[in-house]
């Protein structure tokens, strides 16, 4: 009798508890689930916002947006004209070729400079130097990744640019022209604000990512394979080329492409150190700009366009930039994922 009541009571209690737990679980799943949807919604919202703003500009600018090199707001005080439904100022013309080319050029310079430096540093760090130095350099990489780009930009203007223009570029310019397209030539080495300086600053920003990835991968190379190389009488260099290099290759390439994506979108440092000129540079020292830097430097004057068409054209430029970085990142993710699945290694984890 007594027993029975007890059982009934506990079952009542446990039923209530189970219900609370079920509600709690449901709340948790829906709560975290809605948080998980937010990045996707944000991404979709950004694409929609940019497209809505840019469509009149896409119609009016046409393909000339990708081929023309003239970027002008036109007659700011003229009467607005409507062409194909898009209201704009007379003489307004937007050609983004210098921006697109500048974006690709500066990132190319950055990746060419950053890759060997980052990998070389990681190799000597892991293979030859003691752990304490490794820790110090690790801190250096973290700091390098963490320094705000505005600060790096200021340093590029005040310290790096003038130094390069005074001591390095004149020498480079006198070198025999062994490079294709005569990229180091054209005579004028400028004041240190230009493509090469911008590319070097971008390289500094990629290096932490690539170097820390290469370092982490090198640390995971199995000792046995290295011993095998040693047993065959290889020098350490040969052992690196045959064993470690193959082990880290695709991971490092993936990290480099991720870094490339970051370089393509870097804004403030580039706006500061490249001179921000909406033109193609005649040689590798000249002033230029990128899409990202142009958006940040041109929006002020674009707001002066009463028809809003300049803002629309900048939205089109932003859309192009977004498309480029999305493609690059998709490629990088595919490379990294394939590699990570093969080796179960963390790849492209940020140094920051």
């Amino acid at each position, binding site marked *: 009798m007594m027993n029975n009541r007890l059982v009934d009571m506990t079952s009542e209690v446990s039923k209530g508890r189970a219900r609370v737990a079920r509600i709690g679980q449901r709340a948790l799943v829906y709560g975290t689930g809605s948080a998980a949807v937010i990045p996707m919604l944000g991404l979709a919202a950004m694409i929609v916002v*940019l497209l809505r703003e840019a469509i009149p500009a896409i119609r009016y600018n046409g393909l000339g947006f990708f081929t023309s090199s003239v970027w002008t707001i036109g007659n700011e005080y003229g009467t607005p004209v409507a062409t194909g439904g898009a209201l704009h100022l007379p003489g307004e013309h937007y050609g983004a070729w210098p921006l697109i080319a500048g974006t690709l050029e500066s990132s190319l310079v950055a990746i060419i400079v950053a890759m060997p430096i980052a990998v070389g*540093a990681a*190799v000597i760090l892991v293979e030859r130097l003691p752990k304490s130095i490794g820790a110090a350099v690790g801190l*250096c990489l973290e*700091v390098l990744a963490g320094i705000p780009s505005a600060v790096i930009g200021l340093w590029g203007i005040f310290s790096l640019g003038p130094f390069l223009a005074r001591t390095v570029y004149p020498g480079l310019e006198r070198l025999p022209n062994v490079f294709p397209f005569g990229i180091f030539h054209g005579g004028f080495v400028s004041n240190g604000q230009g493509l090469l300086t911008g590319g070097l600053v971008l390289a500094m920003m990629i290096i932490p990512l690539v170097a820390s990835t290469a370092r982490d991968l090198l640390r995971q190379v199995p000792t046995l394979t290295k011993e095998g190389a040693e047993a065959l009488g290889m020098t350490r260099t040969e052992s690196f080329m045959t064993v470690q290099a193959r082990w880290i290759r695709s991971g490092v390439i993936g990290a480099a492409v991720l870094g490339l994506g970051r370089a393509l979108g870097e*804004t403030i440092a580039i706006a500061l150190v490249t001179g921000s000129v909406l033109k193609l540079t005649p040689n590798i020292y000249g002033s230029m700009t990128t899409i990202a830097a142009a958006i940040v430097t041109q929006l002020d004057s674009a707001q002066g366009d009463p028809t809003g068409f300049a803002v629309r054209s900048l939205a089109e430029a*932003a859309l192009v930039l977004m498309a480029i970085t999305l493609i690059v990142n998709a490629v990088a993710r595919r490379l990294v994922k394939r590699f990570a699945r093969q080796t179960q290694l963390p790849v492209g984890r940020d140094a920051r």
Partner: protein
Amino acid sequence: MTLEAILSGASPRPQVQKERISRGRRIVDRAWWGACAISLFFVVVPVVWVLVSITAKALPHWQWSVFTENSTGVGGGLLNAIVGTVVISVGTAILAGCVGIGCGIYLAEFTPRSLTASVLRGATETLAGIPSIVFGYCGYLALVVGLHWGFSLAPALVVLSLLVVPYIAKSTEIALHQVPLAYREGGEALGMSMPYLLRKVVLRPALPGILTGIILALAISVGETAPLIYTANFSNSVPTGALIHEPVGYLTYAAYTFYDDPIPAAQHLAADASLILAAMVLGLILCSRLIVRLTQRYSPDRHSRPSRAERRLADRVGSGSLPAPR
């Protein structure tokens, strides 16, 4: 070599001889390590150079009044910008922390290997790859102009949060994945409900990883300029806490725009802002290192890597100069 030869033991013993490395190979070896050393030089020197040069630029004109006065456009201090930076980054950390941790928990715990999860994860990673200026421009178009919020705190917070959510989500997910399966199984065997299990068992060992993610988000939001210029703009007064219709000042803006001001006092402010920014970022990096170190010290498997004091103690115990601790 034939089988008979081996069996009869007549085979000559393999000649192990110390082969001399040819001169060419040695030169290549030396050149390679030299090149690596030079690369290391090019990694370390810019960092030191940046830190030294911004310090050298700021220190000669350094005045402690930067912490107490507002900027005036022609000089003054940086109080408004410092407070603004703190407000923006802490606000971002709270907003993005809630969303990012939720996102990470959902991806790690509820849909680990489904199509939904891979779509959501893909979106998060894609978001991480979009340039910050595109975030800023979208925020300007949609929030500042579209919703008539004006240059203010709210659009800045929304844009920056969206920017850093992927980082927090990723670190939360990784931290949760690293919690041993046995913990979960133990909790479930005790009949814990899922929320209770998460709160009491799973989240605690994952906490350091989640915290480092949030510190990373803080560091990013302290250092970003591009998404803020056209959302928060700049203001010469300390933020009052109004969410919309009131611009907010922040340090990176001061560094980015004051440097070419014709007035020397304003140029000095740009240098000061750079120095303060660098100090803030360094502080955050040290914070995250401290967290990692503390967790290692107090983690259950710390004995895999004894501290220096413990090693010394073990040596002295081993050599008999100290009695073994009971």
